[in-house]
């Protein structure tokens, strides 16, 4: 079998996808060599391309370039997150945080029963004197208030008022009085 016929037969197998790796190697070797028959030269480019692909290897700085590319992508994502936080939103967020912190502190103070003043005494007996003084004053004032209210009611009872007459005044009486008041003087006479 002439080499050209042999190559043609291999090519037929190649197009059918039936060639082994060794056969494909011999095809590549033939087409990348110098003795390619003129009628087979159109296929040279194809096998040359295959040979180039096979020879392709990773460059020395491939890992570094890959890492750099990943980091850059990551940074781009971060940048997008920051950009979403436009100034107005940032201010709003700051105000919200400050208010919630303030409210938290205020609530804490409130829960501590508003004892944000210095305790005067450390001895309960000394404090007792003043606490009893305060409560006594308050107790006395409440009693006086109560007495004053009772006295006022008693004074009111002493006034000679016709309560029955006052109670009998109905809304219609009041409306009638208003309507007569608004009439011209001669009509009332």
């Amino acid at each position, binding site marked *: 079998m002439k080499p050209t016929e042999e190559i043609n037969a291999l090519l037929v197998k190649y197009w059918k996808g039936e060639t082994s790796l060794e056969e494909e190697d011999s095809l590549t070797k033939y087409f990348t060599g110098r003795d390619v028959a003129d009628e087979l030269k159109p296929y040279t480019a194809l096998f040359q391309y295959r040979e180039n692909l096979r020879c392709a290897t990773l460059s020395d700085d491939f890992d570094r370039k890959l890492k750099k590319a990943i980091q850059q992508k990551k940074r781009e994502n971060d940048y997008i997150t920051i950009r979403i936080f436009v100034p107005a939103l940032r201010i709003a967020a700051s105000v919200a945080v400050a208010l919630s912190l303030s409210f938290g502190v205020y609530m804490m103070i409130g829960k501590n029963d508003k004892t944000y003043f210095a305790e005067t005494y450390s001895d309960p007996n000394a404090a007792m004197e003043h*606490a009893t003084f305060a*409560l006594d004053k308050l107790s006395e004032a409440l009693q006086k208030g109560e007495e004053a209210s009772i006295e006022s009611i008693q004074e009111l009872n002493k006034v000679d008022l016709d309560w029955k007459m006052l109670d009998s005044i109905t809304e219609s009486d009041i409306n009638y009085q208003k309507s007569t008041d608004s009439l011209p003087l001669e009509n009332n006479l």
Partner: protein
Amino acid sequence: MKKTAFILFFLLSTVSLSAGDFVTQFLEKCIEEKKPVNNINIGKSMLEKMASNTDDEDLKKTFRNLNSIRIITCDNIRDSRLYFKKANNLALEEFKDYQELVSLNEKNAKIHIYFKQESEKLQDLIFIGLDDEEKLSIITITGKIDFASISKLSDSLNKEMKIDNHGETPSMDKGTK
């Protein structure tokens, strides 16, 4: 710059929210340096201790329900009159959400009691009074205030005061401003 502004805003808002107590405002706004007053503060923990120290059940219950008692007194008659007016003005201007509970204007006593109920367990009371010697007493009480029990406390208190102080009225020599 932004951080500083943020911290300032936070501090200002915290301070403005927390400076609401009547006695604090009175001491800050009304007191003149040459006319000093006495100031006594009793907090929750001290009230708890006092409750455990007394045998009187009514008094024990009253102390346990309270959160704080703050007292301002003034021994000078002229200053007392001035501060009585100032305190009432402060209550009417800055504590408008308080109700006037008692208002007495008698020969031997002038008393105003303002009250605010924030919740069932948190009530604020402001007492401003001039006694028969025209000496000023300002008392603020916070916590659960049971008026019915307090108005009946006089006997227990007198007993307690006699035990502690051998019948003498307490001397207000602490916390002078």
